């Protein structure tokens, strides 16, 4: 039986996520992945933005940074560049990471900086009451699309791959063991790792669109037509390493 407790900030638990929200499942997979890799809590930094998923950083006993909406990748870029020896994991959501934070996602991927970005995709802005997200399926209702969504949506993984991310994967909160493996692989990968994780918001999004019970919604994730697993895995110069080369050059050592 896995001891999750060793990774908690006891005084912050239990978490604030709603009944049936998939985020807790992902948190567990993340903690198991970290454990599997034998990483020290002192050497892990988790950086999150704003949204339900971004609350994760408050619960985990490591170096945590809960930033402004859409910006965790930029904060994490500075932290990683200053401290390349830290394992830096970025927690973001579909709104935080693809709408307001889209630009930072594109450029973190382009730089191939060694961050592991977990994007919790529940297809809605849950924290603020259920507004449209760039991933909300067409036709569905949200508080800002009361007549149904007319916007096409993003395939986040394809976006990141196009931008240059060298490890791109998609998992779901339902397939928890494969997810744990993807997260471990992503962390180990040297370069920008992106794992899009399909998850659920039964309380707000699910209720408004009659998507079923929490169990039905979580099981429905298995039926996604989006490709899952490792979608792209390449090697490329990692940014902080390349910058060491700049330092060597500037210091006349090469």
């Amino acid at each position, binding site marked *: 039986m896995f001891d999750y407790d060793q990774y908690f*900030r006891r*005084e*912050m638990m239990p978490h604030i996520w709603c009944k049936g929200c998939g985020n807790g499942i992902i948190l567990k997979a993340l903690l198991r992945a970290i454990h599997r890799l034998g990483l020290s*809590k*002192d*050497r892990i*930094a988790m*950086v999150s933005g704003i949204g339900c998923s971004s609350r994760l*950083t*408050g619960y985990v*006993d*490591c*170096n*945590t*940074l*809960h*930033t*402004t909406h859409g*910006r965790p990748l*930029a*904060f*994490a*870029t*500075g*932290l*990683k*560049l*200053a*401290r390349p*020896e*830290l394992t830096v994991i970025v927690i973001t959501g579909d709104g935080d990471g693809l709408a307001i934070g889209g*630009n*930072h996602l*594109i*450029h973190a991927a382009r730089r191939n900086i060694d961050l592991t970005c977990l994007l919790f995709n529940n297809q809605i802005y849950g924290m603020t009451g259920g507004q449209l997200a760039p991933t909300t399926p067409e036709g569905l209702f949200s508080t800002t699309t009361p007549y149904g969504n007319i916007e096409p949506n993003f395939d986040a993984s394809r976006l990141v791959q196009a931008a240059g991310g060298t490890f791109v994967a998609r998992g779901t909160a339902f397939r928890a063991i494969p997810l744990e493996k993807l997260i471990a692989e992503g962390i180990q990968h040297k370069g920008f790792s992106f794992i899009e994780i399909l998850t659920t918001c039964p309380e707000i999004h699910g209720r408004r669109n009659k998507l079923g019970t929490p169990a039905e919604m979580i099981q429905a994730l298995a039926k996604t037509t989006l490709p899952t697993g490792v979608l792209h895995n390449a090697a490329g110069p990692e940014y902080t390493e390349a*910058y060491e080369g*700049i*330092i060597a*050059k*500037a*210091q006349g050592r090469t």
Partner: protein
Amino acid sequence: MQGSVRLMQGNEACARGAIVAGCRFFAGYPITPSSEIAEELARLLPRVGGKFIQMEDEIGAMAACIGASLGGLKVMTATSGPGFSLKQENLGFAVYTEIPCVIANVMRGGPSTGLPTSPAQSDVMQARWGTHGDHPMIVLAPASVREVHDLTIRAFNLAERLRTPVILLYDEVIGHMREKVELPEPSQYALVERKKPACPPEDYHPYKAEEDDVPSFIRFGEGYRYHVTGLAHDERGFPTQNPRVVEAKQRRLHSKVERHREEIAACETFLLDDAEVAVFAYGITARSARAAVRAARAEGLRAGLFRPISLWPFLDLEVGKLADQVKAVVVAEMNLGQMVYEVERAAHGKTRVVAYQKASGEPIHPEEILAVLREVR
């Protein structure tokens, strides 16, 4: 190069001052008239093992600085009006989470895209209040190339000392002008490092202040695992909505700066001792004011210059004393009235406050100030 005489540009002096101060990280974005700071640091930082990154936008640059500061480095970013506007949210984050950083704003004509290559002094109020919510701010205003260099170092020292962002605010003329400088050896400058915790990790609270209202600060990855959030937080750094805790943090944040006024306050006076009329001016305007005061004296006018070097917190005490002494204060600014209201407030009606304001993209000339001094006599 240091310790010898050189012709140096203001922005270059900012970059060099940063290096002397121990800055080892710069994240920025190109924007006229500040780009030279970034360009110079792109060259200088890697030479000293520091890191430079041009981020994808101004917001990301401010964010990266904060991340790197948490990583333990002394950090700086530089920008101008439009970029300064973009940075405000993350600037407030740094104030609230008490993360040291230096932000240089080389002021240009605004609002909006305005006049990218012309000076203005119209971001003074924005520097104080640009980010939302109650917050203190420390703002320093150099008026010469040498002062840009030295105040950059001062900005870093204050940021590290008080665990807070510090803004270095100067106009395009100061940024682009070249002056002869003779810089001391870097070792001549006393540097301040952030105060580390004396307690073991299990007892550490990142926002529990010592008697001076400043909490100790340890970088990520040293065994002190803590949470930093922009949400209202308690001493442990965890989110809270407890009214007592929320207000206590707010008040400490303010008193942290207020009670260190003496460390922050800086001003310079010129021919003020026996003056009947004073000119209150900063930045390039102070240079013109100095000439105007000299010319006024030659005409028999007892004029003097009061030049604030720290703009925020405002020099209430000093301006109050000034108001006691002179019968009029001419506040000359390259804006349509920003510092003048603070001068009026601090003068408490004890002196006449005369505003001279210019918003044309041109510096105020000595003759303009002299004309006002003649009228005011």
